[in-house]
């Protein structure tokens, strides 16, 4: 593994075993080999059921590879102990399509929550949270509840929460799935700005137009296999456009 690899998949296979003898096993990923370097901005593109979610779950160590090895931030996830998983995740900022904000908490509290539950001192929280809220342009909305904000603003809070630990990698799972197209561009530009500061960004999406617009490295997954890996638009991805 190269020292600049932030994520590396080596011959990775993931099979979900059937619940009983009658249900068939499902091969979600098959012989996946790829590496994502430090500071890269990568789209992982694929249709629903292509294997994108499994790809994410393996990075977050929500699932374990059936075969092969997954390295994240220098750790071999096939050898990591369960009690080390929280520490792995502290090095990964995750943004979800459905934002996953706590409705009873203000924007400030939602961001601070990520720091509190990782045992960070209060004075550091008080310093860091306003800073990340200003980074995503939401300083003025710190005391608003999620339901008082637009979809784009909610996603920016989720992004602020992902940034709060200064993780070397940010993984965005369909970050624009629940927001208007104009706001989608805003979010993507924000991710680009974060990437320009050296953070590795992995955006998992089914929106080919989005990947094509930003002209970044695009990894195409189809039926559990990497079918294309390059700069969009080209190859099979171009065919979708």
């Amino acid at each position, binding site marked *: 593994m190269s020292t600049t690899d932030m994520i590396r998949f080596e011959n990775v296979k993931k099979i979900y075993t059937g619940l009983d003898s009658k249900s068939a096993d499902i091969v979600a990923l098959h012989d996946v080999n790829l590496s994502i370097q430090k500071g890269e901005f990568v789209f992982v593109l694929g249709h629903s059921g292509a294997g994108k979610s499994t790809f994410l779950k393996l990075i977050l160590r929500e699932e374990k590879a059936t075969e092969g090895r997954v390295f994240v931030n220098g750790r071999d996830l096939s050898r990591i102990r369960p009690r080390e998983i929280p520490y792995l*995740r502290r090095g990964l900022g995750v943004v979800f399509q459905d934002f996953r904000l706590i409705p009873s908490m203000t924007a400030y509290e939602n961001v601070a929550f990520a720091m509190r539950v990782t045992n960070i001192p209060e004075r550091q929280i008080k310093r860091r949270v306003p800073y990340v809220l200003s980074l995503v342009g939401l300083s003025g909305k710190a005391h608003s509840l999620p339901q008082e904000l637009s979809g784009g603003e909610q996603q920016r809070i989720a992004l602020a929460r992902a940034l709060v630990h200064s993780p070397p990698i940010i993984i965005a799972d369909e970050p624009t799935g629940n927001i208007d197209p104009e706001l989608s561009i805003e979010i993507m530009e924000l991710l680009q700005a974060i990437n320009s500061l050296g953070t590795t960004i992995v955006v998992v999406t089914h929106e080919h137009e989005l990947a094509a617009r930003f002209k970044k490295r695009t990894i195409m997954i189809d039926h559990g296999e990497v079918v294309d890996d390059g700069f969009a638009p080209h190859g099979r991805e171009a065919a979708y456009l």
Partner: protein
Amino acid sequence: MRISSFKYLVRQGWHSMVSNRLMTLASIGVLVACLMITGVAVLLSVNVGSYVDYLETFNEIEFFLDDAAPADVVENLKIQLPLAQNVSFCEYISKAAAVEDMRGWLGENGDVMNDYAGEGNEQNPLPASFRISLADVSQMADTVQRLQAMGAYAVTAADGSALTLNAFYRINSPTELSSTLVNLRRIVSYVGWGLVVVLGVVSVVVISNTIRLTVFARRKEINIMKFVGATNAFIRLPFFVEGMTVGAISALLATGIVGGAYYGLERALLQPNALWLNEFTRCMLPFFDIIGPLAGGFVLFGVAIGGIGCASSIRKHLKV
């Protein structure tokens, strides 16, 4: 863990209790009921035990001496019996003392014993005896057999053959009463502990369900906590705080109710018009002796059940 984080998690636990106050109240109610029944069972058990202890003080056994028993054998028994195993009290009643006892028992008619009074009175028909109390009544039959054997002595018959006789010609022992008391104590103890175990399990299930509902209501929050890198211990703590607080509050309420009822019962039994219950009242453990252990037991039991109930319900949600 930092103090600020600990405080935050404790606040979260309390906050959750307030947010889910109906469920919290329901589980406190059920737990109070379980603790009350458990407490009543334990108090009943210890008080019956105390009454059995009192009844056991009446476990006197009388060993009547044969008039023909040699004086040296009797003198030996006077020394050996008080020292025998399981004997807590031993008193020798001479023939003359037996007459005086009888005179006292006959009261106004005691004069009829005048002809038999006095040491060495040949006409006295009453036998000398030993009155013995035992330390452990459950071993009464064995002890009686062993003490009886101590009365054995050898004589030579007229035809020259060796004979073994016994200084005791009769033994009055309340063996049936003792076995009844021992059985009663055992039954009360088993029933008491059985109730504690059954109600303990019921309480764990109740608390566990309450926490499970809270966990379910907060599953998104737990999920987020997992993804931002919170450790399992960190996620569990607010739920433990919630479970244990519910346990502690229930314990205090149950102590107030059961302790108050016990105090009231004790006061009522001490009223002059309740003196017919004197026998039982004298054995009833005083309120101030039971309230400390009762409160301590309830708090430990409640908090432990709260903790166990919480641990058993949250495990599934931590597998993210």
